[in-house]
């Protein structure tokens, strides 16, 4: 099972269940979740992968939270209490108010599980994992360039407090930041660093860079980082090696941006709509994961 946990910006009590597509939105246990920046975009991107590959859809743990943390704490507490019997293969932690003590308890609960899931953290779940010194318990982080600088700064508790010299670095200096992050044990086993060049890092070594197609407008679109996190998580769930999952996620996101002819005003749903076309055209040749359905074309 692939389990995704995160908050959504609406009035929603803690809600769990399997996610189903519902037009441009999603349905979870009778509640409609818009596909917008944040956990909604991540879930919808993951669902695009599981739909295409005919896998079990993701299960989700969602709660409404607009910044005061109530929904975030409900999610943490639920996971701490239930993770051992939920026993997911992949656990994705996303938008939650950073809470170091609760993240520590959750990581302990995961350690106590018989079978440890593949652990993915993005957004503030990644921030708190790093701030609490728990980064190395995770398998995949998906930082952008500023978040990479945050991981490299041993003192920063949040990206708003990174050393300004690190904020000044550009994406070409990612290798130095990666090296610093691993030195300080502030990185997951796999990093997918998103930027003009995407870097895929495996236990400190850069194993791939992706720069094509070049679609710089993607950075401005709210949710494009979330979709990358959803894609890499779902490809990992599909059984790809984690670094391969990261490479294909980066390529897929870029190609979807190209297909959608994005501008800085594009909505994330317009990018997500393209994923099935991208997979149909490229996934088999990129990954060897071939769904031999109607119209498969790997050229």
């Amino acid at each position, binding site marked *: 099972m692939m389990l995704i946990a995160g908050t959504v910006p609406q009035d929603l009590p803690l809600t769990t269940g399997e996610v189903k597509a519902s037009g441009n939105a999603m349905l979870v246990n009778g509640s409609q979740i818009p596909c917008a920046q944040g956990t909604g975009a991540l879930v919808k991107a993951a669902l695009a992968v599981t739909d295409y590959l005919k896998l079990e859809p993701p299960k989700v743990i969602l709660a409404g939270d*607009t910044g005061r943390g109530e929904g975030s704490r409900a999610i943490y507490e639920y996971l701490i209490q239930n993770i051992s019997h939920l026993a997911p293969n992949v656990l994705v932690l996303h938008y939650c*108010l950073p809470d170091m*003590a609760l993240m520590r308890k959750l990581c302990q609960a995961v350690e106590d599980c018989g079978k440890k899931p593949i652990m993915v953290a993005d*957004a503030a779940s990644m921030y708190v994992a790093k701030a609490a010194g728990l980064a190395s318990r995770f398998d995949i982080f998906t930082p952008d360039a500023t978040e990479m600088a945050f991981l490299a700064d*041993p003192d920063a508790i*949040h990206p708003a407090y*990174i050393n300004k010299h690190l904020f000044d670095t550009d994406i070409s200096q990612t290798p130095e930041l990666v090296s610093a992050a691993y030195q300080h044990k502030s990185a997951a086993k796999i990093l997918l660093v998103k930027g003009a060049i995407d870097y895929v890092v495996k236990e400190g070594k850069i194993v791939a860079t992706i720069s094509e197609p070049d679609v710089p407008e993607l*950075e401005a*679109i709210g949710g494009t980082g979330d979709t990358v996190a959803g894609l890499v998580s779902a490809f990992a769930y599909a059984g790809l090696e984690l670094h391969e999952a990261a490479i294909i996620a980066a390529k897929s996101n870029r190609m979807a941006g190209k297909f959608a002819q994005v*501008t800085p005003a594009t909505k994330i749903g317009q990018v997500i709509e393209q994923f099935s076309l991208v997979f149909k055209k490229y996934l088999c040749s990129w990954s060897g994961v071939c769904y031999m359905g109607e119209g498969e074309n790997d050229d």
Partner: protein
Amino acid sequence: MTFLRRKEKPSFEGGGLILFADVPGAMGAEKILKGVGYGIKLVAPPPALRKGCDLALGINLAEQPGIERALRQKNAEYLGITPLGGEAQELLEIVKVVDFGDWVMVRAGNMKLAFDKRSGIIANTSGGGCPDIPYLHAELVGKKLSEAPRPKDIGFTLCALMLERALEECLTIWQGGET
């Protein structure tokens, strides 16, 4: 002989401190913040961070903007808020501007805001990771820079504060025509 394992004390790990000039100030702020639901704890500040009294409030640093607003609303005085890191740390002030032709995007820390040069309408917000960011995205996108709600007023977290910085810079560019 068997020993009972001592129950672990509940720890408070928020990464930030509010510093005060005197003890009543610290206790008054504790009452205010607990009253509006913040998880906080009275602590002794480390020697290097002592500015006033020997009592500080441990806070979740990510909630700094919401906490500051709650204290302001009750006219509570404090010396400052500081991260509990190694060296003295300051909030990022610098921003970066990217020109996309018809749009301008400003990066402030981990947040980005893009607006339409012709209309001044917010085209998108991206980045960040705290739970108020998707809410702010929904509230800001599609509105004019000058008419949009301000993240400093309706957000609660450091991500919202960075989005406020980006919005301020976009307003400066828009009003000054520096595109």
